[in-house]
């Protein structure tokens, strides 16, 4: 036992020192703020390997990261030298102007970062993406087989399948979905609206235009789906929907790729876990683009820090996403955009979404305002208290009030 410990300690020391040398940092401060899920934790741990020899690395990974990252990067010097963000949340950092362009650092140190990992805004590199995510179909192979069904490829087929499963008495509410009032419900509308070919804004302006046929159709599909959901669906976020799935109450749902792993884990009832399978996202209304959005997660570098800290941060984060970080354990955590990543079985859904031409979630400053307005205003429609056009008109009015206040209109 003792020998093992010593061997481990030596191996660790050798490993970490060799890695430290590999970071190539002379000194500086690296402070990371980001979301908390296994893939991000792996990135945080990777950056921490660079600590030592005058380099200080700290991480603050929390589900509340969006509430603290802007404030934590506004001061001078900024508390956080890097924020790990996604396509929707980078916008808040750019609006407040707290992140710096990375062109000089990429030119100096980033030759080996793949071109498609570089997120550019107006020609400036603003972030380096390292993983992709999307919502796609998750289904119970056994239930579909028993009902004589194949996995649906469109939302119309999903509705038909739900009716068959319900009428044969296999399940009362076979459809799942994160439809909680607020962010989740709005995200489902964004998916469905894009699936119907809708555009959110008049080109080149912040003027919203969702009160149209695509918007009405999107809402109607959502309402039809909710008829096959647990009646409490407006209180179910991704966690609660996952719990319903684990309890064996749901057979088909549109769910985040990064959430599927836990549904197949040992903690879940073996019958559910072994029959949980995934496929690409569904299309809707005869459209060809999936009713789903693509997401990337990436890292940025704070503006209000010294050049030394910026360089140290860039190198430490680059170290965290180097191709060698991929191994059997980390490969299954996410759909990595890192060179040398071999798609695993779990990544099938997200890869299919990209291949089918799913659109990325819009990286526009005022999209967040529309998202909040949707999350609050389409609830009455989902409860059957008003019609689709009224709900969309309410959303447009709420967005317009918020966007006027923020100075976009």
């Amino acid at each position, binding site marked *: 036992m003792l020998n093992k410990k010593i061997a481990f300690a030596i191996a660790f020391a050798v490993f970490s020192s060799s890695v430290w040398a590999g970071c190539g940092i002379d000194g500086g401060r690296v402070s990371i703020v980001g979301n908390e899920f296994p893939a991000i934790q792996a990135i945080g741990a990777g950056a921490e390997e660079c600590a030592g020899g005058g380099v200080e690395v700290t991480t603050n990974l929390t589900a509340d990261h*969006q*509430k603290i990252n802007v404030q934590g990067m506004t001061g001078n010097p900024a508390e956080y030298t890097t924020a790990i963000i996604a*396509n*929707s*949340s980078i*916008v*808040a950092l*750019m*609006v407040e*102007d707290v992140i710096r362009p990375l062109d000089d650092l990429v030119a100096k140190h980033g030759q080996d970062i793949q071109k*498609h990992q*570089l*997120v*550019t*805004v*107006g*020609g400036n590199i603003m972030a380096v*993406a390292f993983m*992709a995510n999307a919502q796609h179909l998750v289904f119970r192979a056994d239930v579909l087989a028993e009902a004589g069904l194949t996995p649906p490829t469109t939302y119309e087929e999903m509705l038909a399948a739900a009716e068959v499963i319900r009428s044969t008495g296999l399940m009362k509410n076979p459809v799942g979905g994160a439809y909680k*009032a*607020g*962010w989740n419900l709005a995200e489902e509308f964004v998916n469905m609206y894009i699936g119907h070919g809708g555009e959110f*804004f008049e080109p*080149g*302006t*912040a003027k919203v235009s969702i009160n149209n046929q695509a918007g009405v159709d999107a809402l109607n599909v959502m309402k039809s789906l909710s008829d096959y959901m*647990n*009646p*409490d669906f*407006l*209180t179910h*976020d991704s966690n609660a929907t996952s719990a319903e799935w684990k*309890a064996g109450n749901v057979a088909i749902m549109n769910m985040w790729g990064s959430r599927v792993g836990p549904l197949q884990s040992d903690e879940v009832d073996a019958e559910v876990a072994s029959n949980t399978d995934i496929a690409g996202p569904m299309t809707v209304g005869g459209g060809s683009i999936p009713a789903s959005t*693509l997401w*990337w997660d990436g890292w940025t570098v704070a503006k209000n820090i010294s050049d030394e800290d910026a360089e140290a941060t860039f190198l430490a984060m680059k170290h965290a996403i180097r191709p060698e970080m991929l191994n059997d354990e980390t490969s299954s955590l996410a759909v990595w*955009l890192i060179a040398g990543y071999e798609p695993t079985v779990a990544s099938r859904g997200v890869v299919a979404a990209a291949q089918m031409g*799913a*659109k*990325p979630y819009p*990286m*526009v*400053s005022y999209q*967040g*305002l529309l*998202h*909040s307005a949707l999350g*609050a205003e389409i*609830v*009455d429609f*989902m*409860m059957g208290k008003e019609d689709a056009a009224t709900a969309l008109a309410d959303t447009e*009015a*709420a967005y*317009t*009030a*918020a966007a*006027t*206040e*923020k*100075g976009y209109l």
Partner: protein
Amino acid sequence: MKHKTFFWFFLPTAMAMFLFIALPLVSVVSQSLHVPHDKVLITVENCDPFGCTSQTQIDHTLTQALYEADPLGQWAGLGIYFDRGHLAIKEVGEMWRGSSGLGDFFSTLKNLPFYRAMGFTLTFTFIVTPLVILFGFLIALAVNSLHQRLKGLMIFFSLLPMIVTPLIGSLIMFWMIDSRGIIGSMLQILLDNPELSLKASTGLTWITLIIYGIWHAAPFAFIVFYAGLQTVPKETLESAMIDGATRLQQIMHVVIPHLAPLVAFVALMQLMDNFRVFEPIIGFNAEAHATSLSWIIYNDLGGETRLLSSAATTSVLTIIGISILLAPVLVRTWREFNPQE
């Protein structure tokens, strides 16, 4: 007290009131009267792992210049107060002209976030406050008549609902009333309705929140009234008994008049607490059915939107709302302590 002594005695309090009450008020009011500068928008090419698109972004150098010229933002006057997210003067006017009657008007009014929130907040406040006072008083009477040895134990148990943090308490209840939770399934069996869901209907959600509110706040009223009961003069009670008053008559004519100032105190505290109802809405995930002014502020401040002027405006409206609610109680208390000659 000499004026000089009074001045030095009162100075620390005055300083604290200035720093922690007056300054924040000035700050929140001034924020509610300003909005951010107009953003200068440009169309740029954005590229990410999934390809390039042309999108509208903010021109930072030009926007920054506006801020340096005027850091507070643009003067908006009462613009935010009257927009759709708050008092919605224009929308309410249109609804008034377009509605067929008062009932119709109020049902369309619920479509506006501020009035929807006020609808729930006022219902919650005016049902929970009197019931908390009633239940608190009944529990206090019951505990007070117990044997000395049982009292301590009962007081402890009666206080438990107040000890649990509201957010945690409501989260626990949220899972218990789930259609598959212990209370949810029990109600389904008792009412013989397997479809019953407390979370799916607005009415049942309101009732759940109101019951939770009473359950959580009753111990506060109880402990205040229980303390008051210890000071009821024994002589008055005894003479009432000698005069042949029943227990009910003793309570009506001796105990309640004695506790009247405490009722005013509990009502004051509860009106304030209930008007800013917040945690149960979050804990019960009830945003779809019930919102409150505090919830609107939370929603404006959190997430990616950060509507700071809107949050400041709602804060000012909350302060005004609480002042209106408390005015009758405050006037009454003022009269009691300053009897007219």
